[in-house]
């Protein structure tokens, strides 16, 4: 049972998320039909699921909400701010009680009662304001329509054995019918031919079937009868005694109902259901089609998989690749006919398998954005500011493990923008800025990384204030000269806050260092850029995929390293003596001056006895730097295993990988190697 409950909770959360997104969208544009449908659908599905599990508190709670939104979607009710606020409050409550549906907690129980009452009031208020007509109650407000069917069989109708009464019975089975029979006039009894049909009928049918279905009843007799079907756009006729009196008046006469007369009679007696007919979903309505298509799309394009299964798949794929590396090595060392080809094929297949399965753990960052939207709305309202929140690059995908860990740091950063960045409305107007503040999130790929920028157009960060605070805290010497960017980095120090007033939302200086730590733990980085009165941009850099990369296997003093292929620009062969006595540590490669890092030197290995070294030129987004190694061994697909806490400080090694022969190779983070080199060079320079 537990497993089923887990599934219920997961589905419920998904439904509540989709509900929230639609509600927030409706706040912007109350007329968007598809969002109303989404709200209704989510409520309806959740209600059904909850009933299935016997969670009556939840299903009852949803029942009235669902009724309200049903009225909204057929246009009987208008969306008011009151309704939306109440629905959002109900949503929050549902998020909680999904986990404890028996309302054991008295707080939950109280809130439940309160919200139920509010919803009931909203429902009653709106229902009472719609005039209810007796006839309307009798006829359901569905897509049922009234038709007049004129059925006149030709005289030879009976010749093939057809029985018109059977057809009438079939029509009667399609809905409420009133059948008025007629006979053609015969002047003289001698003229009557008994095998000929002289009957004809006026049939009045109220049905939900469409005209084509009615026509289909007569499919076999199209050639032997005259059939005419007219839609009467008025409701409630078949219950109306005046109408019935009129139509029956012509019964058993030769006088058939004149259509025009019928229509004017209907108009005077019936209830014009033109408006109702338009509102109820027509079978060919685009929104219905759109809805159905959207549903189909959803079903076709996604399958729910437990993340444990995904993790297991990842592990197996990783091990497969490691084993495949052994196979390659074996085939190289043992020249057995045919083995090389097979080994190569397996390599190709495992590479593709890797790409596909790793693509599965990538989740678009959109999911995260939706949560922020809600938080911004609520917080902005609470502190009296108006914010326009925009996102770009939501389809950018990140490893799902990373996304979960990003939510908290991001929440903190956005709250900071809201609280300290964006000025009050009055202040903004005074500065000539638009009253509504702007907060935006932009995500994009670059190389092996994903960049996410959170930007606001607020008052920016005062560099001088930060500088002074840093000096005050002893983190910075008075005379020291640092770039703005370096000064902003102090903000990430624990306990550092230049906020004059600590608010409920932020300002204690607790969050930024934690945010940075969380991001760095994921192998990423964070930096701030700001201009006074213009705004602040925070850039977060994150590694794309944690585990498998394509790299170049190299040798440095008999230790093997892997250099990620994506960072490499070009490889050169260089004579060692060129590097030895190099004062400005620059090499001229392809006519370009490129600084270089001698790994043997960096890693304190002995100096090389070789004549030649290989220079691998890498690009860290800003500079090109050459890294010198003893030899390049081969291209290699590395399954990266983390080194763990013990090697936290050695960040230039981003992980290790197990080679085909069982030894361990270290995976280089080339950016950090460059940083390390710069640090060391500055040390020597001082």
């Amino acid at each position, binding site marked *: 049972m537990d497993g089923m409950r887990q599934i219920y909770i997961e589905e419920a959360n998904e439904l509540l998320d989709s509900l929230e997104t639609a509600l927030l969208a409706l706040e912007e544009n109350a007329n968007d039909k598809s969002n109303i449908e989404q709200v209704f659908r989510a409520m309806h599905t959740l209600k059904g699921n909850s009933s299935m599990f016997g969670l009556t508190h939840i299903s009852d709670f949803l029942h009235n909400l669902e009724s309200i939104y049903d009225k909204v979607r057929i246009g009987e009710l208008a969306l008011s701010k009151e309704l939306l606020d109440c629905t959002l409050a109900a949503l929050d409550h549902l998020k909680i009680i999904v986990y404890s549906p028996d309302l054991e907690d008295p707080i939950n129980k109280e809130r439940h009662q309160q919200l139920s009452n509010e919803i009931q009031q909203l429902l009653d208020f709106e229902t009472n304001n719609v005039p209810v007509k007796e006839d309307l109650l009798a006829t359901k407000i569905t897509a049922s329509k009234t038709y007049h069917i004129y059925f006149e069989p030709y005289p030879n109708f009976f010749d093939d054995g057809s029985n018109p009464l059977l057809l009438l019975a079939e029509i009667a089975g399609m809905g409420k019918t009133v059948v008025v029979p007629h006979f053609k006039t015969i002047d003289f009894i001698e003229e009557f031919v008994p095998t000929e049909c002289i009957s004809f009928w006026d049939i009045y049918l109220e049905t939900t079937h469409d005209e084509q279905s009615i026509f289909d009843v007569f499919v076999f007799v199209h050639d032997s009868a005259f059939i005419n079907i007219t839609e009467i756009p008025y409701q409630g006729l078949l219950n109306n005694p005046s109408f019935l009196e009129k139509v029956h008046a012509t019964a058993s006469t030769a006088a058939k109902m004149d259509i025009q007369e019928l229509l004017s009679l209907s108009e005077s007696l019936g209830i014009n259901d033109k408006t109702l007919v338009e509102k109820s979903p027509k079978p060919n309505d685009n929104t219905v089609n759109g809805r159905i298509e959207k549903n189909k799309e959803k079903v076709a394009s996604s399958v729910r998989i437990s993340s444990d299964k995904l993790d297991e798949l990842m592990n197996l794929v990783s091990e497969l690749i490691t084993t495949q590396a052994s196979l390659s090595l074996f085939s190289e060392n043992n020249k057995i006919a045919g083995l090389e080809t097979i080994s190569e094929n397996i390599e190709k297949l495992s590479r593709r398998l890797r790409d596909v399965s790793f693509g599965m753990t990538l989740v678009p960052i959109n999911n995260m954005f939706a949560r922020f939207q809600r938080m911004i709305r609520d917080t902005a309202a609470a502190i009296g500011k108006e914010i326009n929140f925009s996102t770009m690059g939501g389809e950018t995908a990140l490893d799902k493990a990373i996304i979960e860990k990003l939510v908290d740091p991001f929440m903190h950063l956005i709250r900071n923008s809201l609280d300290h960045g964006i000025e009050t409305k009055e202040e903004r107007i005074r500065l000539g800025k638009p009253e509504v503040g702007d907060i935006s999130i932009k995500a994009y790929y670059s190389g092996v990384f994903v960049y996410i920028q959170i930007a606001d157009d607020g008052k920016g960060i005062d560099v001088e204030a930060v500088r002074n605070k840093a000096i005050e805290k002893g983190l910075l010497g008075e005379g020291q000269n640092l770039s703005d960017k370096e000064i902003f980095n102090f903000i990430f120090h624990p306990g550092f806050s230049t906020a004059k007033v600590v608010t409920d939302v932020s300002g204690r200086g607790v969050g930024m260092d934690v945010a940075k730590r969380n991001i760095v733990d994921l192998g990423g980085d964070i930096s701030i850029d700001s201009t006074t009165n213009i705004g602040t941009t925070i850039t977060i850099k994150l590694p794309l995929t944690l585990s498998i990369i394509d790299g170049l296997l190299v040798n440095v003093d008999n230790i093997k390293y892997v250099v990620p292929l994506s960072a490499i620009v070009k490889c050169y062969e260089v004579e060692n003596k060129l590097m030895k006595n190099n004062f400005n540590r620059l090499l001229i490669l392809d006519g370009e001056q490129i600084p270089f890092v001698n790994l043997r030197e960096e890693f304190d290995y002995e100096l090389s006895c070789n004549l030649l070294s290989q220079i691998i030129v890498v690009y860290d987004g800003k500079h090109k730097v050459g890294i010198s190694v003893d030899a390049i061994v081969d291209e290699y697909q590395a399954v990266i295993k983390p080194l763990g806490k013990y090697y936290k400080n050695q960040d230039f090694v981003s992980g*290790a990988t197990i080679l085909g022969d069982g030894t361990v190779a270290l995976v280089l983070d080339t950016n950090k190697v460059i940083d390390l080199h710069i640090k060391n060079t500055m040390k020597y320079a001082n």
Partner: protein
Amino acid sequence: MQTNKNTQTSKTDRSAEKIKSFLSFKLDTELFAIPVMDVIEIVEVPPITKIPQSPEFLKGVINLRGAVLPIIDARVKFGFPSTEPTVNTCIIVLEVEINEEAIYVGALVDAVLGVFEMDENAISPSPTIGAKYKANFIKGMIKNDDNFIMLLDIDKVFSALEVDIVLEVSE
């Protein structure tokens, strides 16, 4: 990884005595012991890949059936100079808790002696005077035959930080 637990259940009354199993090992001339429950396995020493610019007590990493295992040179941790491995040198794979997270680490030791059972109540507290090592690393002293064996708190000893276990002579 298979847990190499010692499952010798003794039928003696457990409420009075708390019999636990310990693994004893040797570093240079000193004898140490750790609870068998914390030991995952014992392996021979494969090629160790040293990470550049790492502290001396971190010997490097090895390949343990496809996983990357960090290796701590226990000799160095306890103040002995690092030496070349002998035929008896081996690696004890331990599960330690760091910052509430369970991590596997390998301890490089000179020799593993054996497993012995001991009544927990019979473990004497470690002496403070004349002690060679800081008190919080040693959980107690065990007298086994003629030897004194020091029972280690592995979470403290094998933590990731470079903490000095050896007491300064002046203290």
